[in-house]
């Protein structure tokens, strides 16, 4: 392997300029050493993805040099990078859903003949080496996102990679699953491998990495040993300015609002124990809990999207019929967890996505569309929410995560929305956009909306919510005022009285 002092991977003035003139990378220097975890940070659009694509051989740099173990290399195909010992774990892990864990882990192995026995033994050894257990015969499509992440890591280990690039490995994971990934990262480094970790979680980067590089506008603006950094410094380097925390709430002002929605004995067999609570106008009600604790299920049940759910949802005292259609008509809005899969229509430009939920308002007699008023509404939303887009005709697939999220929130603001249900609105978006979204949530509440906010980030909940319900195993187990609780207390409540984190991923 490498002799310790010279870096495993070295980038010198790496540039990537696309044929249309966009400079994704404008001269990046980076050094990754063996036996270290190297953090790579940057806002959306800073050039992280391009850098990863170049390192994994998916695209070529237009200028600059890559030195791998001290030698100049230039990969034109992902297979070459893989053969050299670089494994890349993309955010959307490319696994074959219908094949088992075992078959996926050894998918890229050469040789036409697969013998189960030795491979099974090898996989058991690999799992033992990182201290993780999974049913190796389970088809991958039945696994949770966290488990798939672990299969991706096992795949990289099986390929005997010396550099493992991880693109936001923990973005969609619950705390317990995150712990496993964190442990695995440290173990990999201890074994002498190098890890290049891309993450939006500053605390994670500070806790796990040895060195950090921050990209901004295609250039490395900060390279430093992690020990010399703190969260504020990192955040400032990422956004290029000091980050404004979400506007602090004025305690008490919201709680006085009249109840907008009352949830009475709402339950869904096998998913949700009977829940009862109310949300007031101008109130942000946070829902805390780990992945699989029933948070999303609760939102879907309130919205009427869960056909098996029973119980009552009242809006201003009036009971609602149980269907998304009735919910939308009455003024309930759901911004789902997965923007791309559940929120936006990829074929539609921004303005058509924006008006979809309350289309009737942009039509004469509810039938004949007035596209002028539609585009006007879209322009107003772009202006109001500060959506960064070329115009109303921009394809939603071209928007960054934060802007796409704003579109899926803005969709509901052009209708008679009274109750806004937000499911992980800040998942997978960068620090700057996050604080914008949180500020937006507070602003909407101040405007009189009742908001239910589900988030895995407890910091976010305590900052943005007035009151927090804690869920565990499909039931509401506690309620706290946001000003009177702490992240530590929330973790303890969500994980049970004993304060022990649930093990295993994705209880369902």
């Amino acid at each position, binding site marked *: 392997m490498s002799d310790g002092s010279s870096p495993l991977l070295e980038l010198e003035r790496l540039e990537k300029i696309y044929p249309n003139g966009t400079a994704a990378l404008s001269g990046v220097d980076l050094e990754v050493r063996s036996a270290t975890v190297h953090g790579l940070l940057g806002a959306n659009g800073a050039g992280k993805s391009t850098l990863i694509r170049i390192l994994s051989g998916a695209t070529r740099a237009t200028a600059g040099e890559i030195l791998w173990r001290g030698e100049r290399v230039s990969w*034109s195909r992902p297979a070459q990078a893989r053969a050299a010992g670089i494994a890349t774990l993309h955010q959307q*892990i490319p696994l074959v*859903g219908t094949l088992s864990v075992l078959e996926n882990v050894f998918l890229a192995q050469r040789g036409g003949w697969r013998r189960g026995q030795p491979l099974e033994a090898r996989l058991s050894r690999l799992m033992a080496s990182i201290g993780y257990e999974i049913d190796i015969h389970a088809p991958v499509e039945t696994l949770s996102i966290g488990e798939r992440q672990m299969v991706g890591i096992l795949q990289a280990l099986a390929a005997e990679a010396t550099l493992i690039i991880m693109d936001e490995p923990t973005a969609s994971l619950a705390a317990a699953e995150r712990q496993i990934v964190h442990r695995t990262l440290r173990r990999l480094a201890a074994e002498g491998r190098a890890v290049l970790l891309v993450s939006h979680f500053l605390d994670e980067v500070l806790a796990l990495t040895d060195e950090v590089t921050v990209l901004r506008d295609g250039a490395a603006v900060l390279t430093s040993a992690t020990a010399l950094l703190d969260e504020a410094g990192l955040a400032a380097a990422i956004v290029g300015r000091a980050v404004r925390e979400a506007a602090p709430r004025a305690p008490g002002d919201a709680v006085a609002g009249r109840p907008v929605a009352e949830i009475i004995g709402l339950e869904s067999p096998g998913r949700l124990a009977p829940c009862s609570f109310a949300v007031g106008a101008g109130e942000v009600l946070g829902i805390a809990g780990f992945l699989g604790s029933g948070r999303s299920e609760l939102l879907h049940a309130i*919205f009427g999207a869960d056909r098996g759910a029973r119980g009552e949802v009242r809006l201003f005292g009036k009971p609602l019929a149980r269907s998304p259609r009735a919910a939308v008509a009455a003024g309930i809005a759901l911004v789902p967890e997965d923007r791309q*899969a*559940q*929120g936006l229509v990829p074929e539609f430009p921004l303005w*058509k996505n924006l008006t979809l939920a309350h289309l009737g308002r942009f039509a004469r007699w509810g039938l004949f569309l007035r596209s002028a008023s539609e585009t006007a509404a879209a322009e107003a939303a772009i202006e109001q929410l500060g959506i960064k887009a070329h115009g109303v005709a921009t394809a939603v697939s071209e928007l960054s995560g934060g802007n796409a999220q704003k579109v899926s929130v803005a*969709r509901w603001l052009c209708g008679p929305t009274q109750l806004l249900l937000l499911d992980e609105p800040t998942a997978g978006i960068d620090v700057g956009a996050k604080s914008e979204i949180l500020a937006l949530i507070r602003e909407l509440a101040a405007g009189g909306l009742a908001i239910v906010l589900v988030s895995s980030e407890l910091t976010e909940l305590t900052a943005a919510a007035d009151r927090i319900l804690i869920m565990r195993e499909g039931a509401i187990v506690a309620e706290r005022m946001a000003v009177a609780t702490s992240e530590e207390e929330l973790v303890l409540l969500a994980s049970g009285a004993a304060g022990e984190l649930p093990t295993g991923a994705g209880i369902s």
Partner: protein
Amino acid sequence: MRFQAEVRRALGLREAGVYYALLLLIITLAVVCAVLGRPSYLSAVNLINIVYQAAPVALMGVAMTVVLITGNFDLSVASVAALAAAVQIGAVDAVGFAPALCLALAAAAAVGLLNGVMVQLVGINAFIVTLGTLTAVRGLVLIVTGGRSLMVQTPAALATMTGFESGRAGPFPYPILYMAGFTLLVWLVVHFTTLGRRTYAVGGNAEAARLCGIRVNAYRIGAFVLSGLVAGFAGVLYASRFGAMNPTALQGEELTVIAAAILGGTSLFGGAGSVLKTVAGALVLYTLTNGFNVLNLGANYQGLIEGTVLIAAAAIYTVGGRRGKSLRRLRALAHDTIIPVRSALPETPCHKTRC
């Protein structure tokens, strides 16, 4: 700048390819005819004849496009058309033209409803369901007709039926008017009403549409019923043209209908498609057929040429459809052989796989 880009896109191969193809085909045939000294290809009689021949397929193609936009698939149209033709001819002597028409359309719509319910409410894949009805409805036609040709018996009924089909408004035979009227209506609905927008949304992202309060099942089942109805109408046109039918009539025609939609650039994955281009697609297919006749080329070549044209068209749409990506990038992608797992939602039944 933006306007120019829009124009360039609208005139690009992907957006307007099928119109270019049609134009190119007609010009080629006109030139060849002129060179060989045949009667003028561009005569009104010949052109109207092409449209007249294409009308039933274009009609069904427009309804098929709506089904495809919602993200489904209907293989049963030709069998349903044959069923409607059989009902029309079987009933017209006894009950008269209009009641027979209603019966025929009702039978056709019922099959469409069955398709829709099986696909949306039971959750069986549309390809399987409509392959089943394709076969079963054809079997039903054979049972109803006893395997023999049916003929209209009373001269009065026969006269009404042929009047319905072969009458003319000016130079245009009625089927062209039916087709043009229906296409225009669907085009207007699809582009300028909330119904149309929601239809596209349902096919583009069913879960997003559902969470926006759109009744996904209603739209998809509605598309199937429309497809059945229109197939029934095409069947009645067919029956009226000859005043008779044999039980294997229109066999295989569903593939021509789907081919017309694909030539028009309709996506098999839903969310995209244009009814006008489907009509152009049908015209391309019938111009080809017509060209073979006019030039006295052997009919043997026809299948080969049509199939090639279909695949070439699909290739243009697929390659041209990857917006903003250079061919080099495409080649790089081709090396990535692992297929990503797209459905991260185990609870949604997988009607289709997107790539």
